[in-house]
């Protein structure tokens, strides 16, 4: 029994955090959301839209340069060959930064799915490029009505009709679906069929799709935990600085107690998330229950933190000028992604209330013989 991260795992997450602080600051998020270039490059010939795209591209390459795209890819394909326990801390930090690019979906979901399908030569070839971050793969799954970043990705990996299809994005029919979160570019993707794109069928396709859902829930939960932490940080900083009645508002118990409650929810979502990370590749009932639990706990923690942080900020928090809304919007969006609360609660209920999963002490980690 060891429930602590290694020094290497912590170092990798903090390297990610440092880079995110540099290339994905609130000012940069704001510039991207407002369609302005962040760098004061007045001489740039490109128009603002191109500049935003170029900055996004540059950010992607900087994360790729430290190997993030290939953390979960096998070493034979140029990846690091690491596990979900290694990547979960990175996904948490991506959430903390409200990263506008689909790096978590690419590296956390698409890359391991490609690795599962790598006996297909065209998948193998793509996997090496994806692991290096030289190409971006968006992922479609029946749990989500839309595909995140289908438009700016190079490839689509689509699980539908009990099959998995891989195609170039330019070959798909996409309908943009604007989101409240300006960084989330959602698209309705017309289903595809046919031999030229099909990379898995039947049992194999089903297993790949189930693991995509498992990692989707896991890494969505990880980002929500990161967002929760970020929103608490923002609210605490504001409560220390903002003065009313001659003292910082953060000295008032009405503020303190709300923020403390948010912190309790965060602290108790984390161990669930980390336990779920050890089970993302497994498809048994208990693993599914733990993954659903992680998604629900993270959603609830982030939701409470968003609500609290907004109230702590008062009218300032309701303004576009204060950064909080970028993180709140991401949290609201992710609450519904990769299975909303209703989906995961029903899935838990099916396994716990209706199903035969043993309950009570001693079953948290394994189904001990009773």
């Amino acid at each position, binding site marked *: 029994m060891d429930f602590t991260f290694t020094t290497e795992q912590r170092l990798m997450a903090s390297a990610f955090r440092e880079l995110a602080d540099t290339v994905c600051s609130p000012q940069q998020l704001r510039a991207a959301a407002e369609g302005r270039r962040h760098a004061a490059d007045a001489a740039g010939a490109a128009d603002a839209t191109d500049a935003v795209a170029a900055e996004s591209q540059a950010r992607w390459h900087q994360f790729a340069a430290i190997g993030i795209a290939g953390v979960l890819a096998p070493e034979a394909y140029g990846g690091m060959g690491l596990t979900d326990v290694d990547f979960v801390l990175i996904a948490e930090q991506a959430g903390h930064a409200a990263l506008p690019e689909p790096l978590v979906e690419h590296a956390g979901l698409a890359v391991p799915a490609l690795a599962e399908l790598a006996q297909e030569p065209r998948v193998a070839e793509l996997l090496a490029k994806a692991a290096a971050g030289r190409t971006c793969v968006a992922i479609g799954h029946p749990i989500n009505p839309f595909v995140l970043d289908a438009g700016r990705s190079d490839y689509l990996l689509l699980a539908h009709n009990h099959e998995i299809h891989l195609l170039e994005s330019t070959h798909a029919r996409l309908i943009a679906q604007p989101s409240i979160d300006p960084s989330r570019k959602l698209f309705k993707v017309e289903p595809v069929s046919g031999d030229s794109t099909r990379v898995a069928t039947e049992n194999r396709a089903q297993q790949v799709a189930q693991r995509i859902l498992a990692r989707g829930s896991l890494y969505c939960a990880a980002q929500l935990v990161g967002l929760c932490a970020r929103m*608490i940080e923002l609210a605490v900083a504001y409560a220390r600085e903002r003065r009313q009645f001659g003292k910082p508002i*953060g000295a008032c118990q009405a503020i303190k107690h709300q923020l403390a409650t948010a912190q309790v929810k965060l602290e108790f979502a984390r*161990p669930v998330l980390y336990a779920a990370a050890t089970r993302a590749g497994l498809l048994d009932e208990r693993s599914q229950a733990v993954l659903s639990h992680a998604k629900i706990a993270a959603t609830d923690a982030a939701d409470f933190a968003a609500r609290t942080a907004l109230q702590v900020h008062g009218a300032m928090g309701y303004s576009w000028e204060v950064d909080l809304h970028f993180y709140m919007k991401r949290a609201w969006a992710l609450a519904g992604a990769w299975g909303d609360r209703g989906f995961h609660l029903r899935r838990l209920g099916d396994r716990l209330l209706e199903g035969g999963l043993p309950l009570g002490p001693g079953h948290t*980690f394994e189904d001990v013989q009773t």
Partner: protein
Amino acid sequence: MAIQLHYTPEQTTFRAQARAWLREHVPAEPLPTLESEVGFVQHREWERTLARGNWGMITWPREYGGRGVGLIEWLIFEEEYYRAQAPARVNQNGLFLLGPTLMEFGTALQKSRFLPQMAAGETIWAQAWSEPQAGSDLAALSATARRDGSQYVLRGHKIWSSRATFADWCFGLFRSDPDSQRHRDLSFILVPLRHPGVRVRGIRQIHGEPGFAEVFFEDARVPLENRVGEAGQGWEIAMATAGFERGLMLRSPARFQVTAHRLFELYRRHASTAEPGLAATVLQAWMDAEAYTLNTYMTATRIMAGGSIGVEASLNKIFWSELDLSMHRAALSLLGARAELLPHAPDAGDVGAWLEGFLFSLAGPIYAGTNEIQRNIIAEKLLGLPRE
């Protein structure tokens, strides 16, 4: 090492061993509540039974009556203990609060004098901290310990002292300099409760039993060697004790996992008449009990790797106390019109211990420092918000 969440074969064997012993020794019928005189006696007897099996306090070194096992074994033992529905630990203030405090701050003599007796169930301990004018504001306490040669002379009035009505000893906080202010010059002193100058008066709790007491110190004399730590170190030691109280030892996750499991069974029996939405509450109970378990294992392995538990104890205390309350409220809701029945009512049906548990769960957000005080601690010490 990376995260791996499995028990070793030795731990699995240990679990089987604990399970077998408990199966053989746990009383078939639940004991009367330990808050009553007759229940107290029987619970003390159970502590002696545990000690005879060497299960009194397994994490302690052998020389103090333990087995010298680690925290994971402790959690396994607790899982089996609650699964077996073994009696509540009447000496929990001693075993889980004073015990670890003595390990850290006690002299070798104090350890060898008090710990084996505690593990053996021979000395039952109570806590004497709160006073009528010093509850949440504990540092406002005014009981004094005046030094007279080789003795302390104790004066003051302590209150809300759990189990002091029938217990043998208490660990108290006293002001060793009567002119001192707040946290300064407090001392942590061990006092026998059946002792000249010590008067104990039981206070009936909400359920009618004298579960806590007032303790009056009227020039009670104890030797200086009953002081734990240095004179004036009392606040620091008390805060460490409070950390144990809110933290890892006092409220094992297994306790809540068992309650969540019982709640599931109750829900299955009453689902057809249950209030809409209660299924979600029941599932939430499972999730929160699991989250608390995972958090505890995470803390345990962090401590085993050399870490310590600090302000996290306040997070724990809020979480388990609110969870316990929520589960019992859900159970009473499921029981509907029968929820008010005492277990011996002829038509009590399956009300069982839910009502008693509900009353106890109501105390959770109050004892061991109210949840409002815990939130202040989290806000100031963890989040860095300014003091009021």
